[in-house]
């Protein structure tokens, strides 16, 4: 079992805000298509994506996703960070692309 807190220990992944970091991560979903996330992501999953805007926060909140990892070094604007804080969603920025990030999270979830 991993917690959001554990993700920030990964080399190459930085945490962008500090809310609810004790929450458990039960899975992960990788997609840049928000309608796909909406339709298929399971509650409790962390979202791995390059979509770093307000709608990503809205989708994560509606689907009950506790964390989002923005890939390829994408950062979030202060607006996005504020919105995430309001929704209690933890944001991360990963230096790696979606595939590499997914591999790293996948390994963590397996252990």
């Amino acid at each position, binding site marked *: 079992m991993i917690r959001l807190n554990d993700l920030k220990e990964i080399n190459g992944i930085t945490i962008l805000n500090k809310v609810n970091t004790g929450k458990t991560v039960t899975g992960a979903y990788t997609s840049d298509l928000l309608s796909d996330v909406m339709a298929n992501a399971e509650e409790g999953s962390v979202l791995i994506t390059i979509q770093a*805007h307000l709608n990503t926060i809205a989708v994560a909140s509606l689907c009950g996703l506790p964390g989002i990892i923005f890939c390829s070094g994408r950062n979030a604007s202060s607006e996005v960070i504020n919105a995430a804080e309001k929704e209690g969603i933890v944001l991360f920025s990963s230096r790696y692309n979606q595939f590499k990030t997914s591999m790293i999270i996948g390994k963590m979830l397996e252990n």
Partner: protein
Amino acid sequence: MNNYIYTDSLRLQELVYGLKIKEVMTRDIFTLPLRAKMKEAKQILKKNHITGLPVVENSRVLGMISMNDVINALEKGSMEEPVTEWMSRDVQVLSEDMSLSFAFSAFNKYPYRRFPVVDKENRITGIITFRNINLALINKLSSQLNELEHSSGENIAAERISGFTKVYTIRQYDFENGGKASAEIKKILKEKKLPDTVVRRAAVACYELEINLAAHSIGGMLGIDINSRRIKISSSDLGPGIENVDKAMEAGFSTASEWIRSMGFGAGMGLPNVKKVSDKFNIHSESGVGTMVRSVIYINNQ
């Protein structure tokens, strides 16, 4: 086939013909006298957040001053000049007893965003904008929907006690606020302690419809109506309408622009997603008129 297409009496076009312009227009309007100067036009426009003013003498419309005219006059330093120097004299008026369909075609035919409305004696009685039409049709549509429900016996008054009804306005291309209505709806459903799957399905339907309104329509309304048996989510807009509803229901078909796609939408999953999570799903659309979608999710039917 087409089992999701409305076959009952709910027809947007009938509404457009059934309403008169005077039922819909704004009556409380600002006008300019002939001797007014451009700077006065500017002040009135600015103070009241409007974009056009009729120039009127003895209740007759002689011209229109738009925000553009004011900007042009500002650039030339002509704010002391009378409005008669700058107004457009080629004014198209609509008669208050015409059906709303005339207003519709006028908006399509002319580049203007507002029309002065006159009575039989050609005296100005109001102004009509697209916003007027939008609001009026939404009101009419929601009352028709309620009647429909009533007649199909789906709605029992007593059930409304713990119910909830709200209509949200969604503006075109307003992705910044995209999801606000859905988030609020989800919160309400959670507070009602509904099963998680029901909440999730309703949230998906709401969100996709909300994004559709922002991405594809000129703006519209998202309505939610909850009673103890079901959640009903309806979306309605006044254009541009879907050319081919069957195609729009196909997974993967989309008419979205590059910009919308770059935001992570427009992959042709929206309407199919809504249908997938709904127990009942209707869509009715007419090209050039508008689109209505209704999704019903039963609460105890899991």
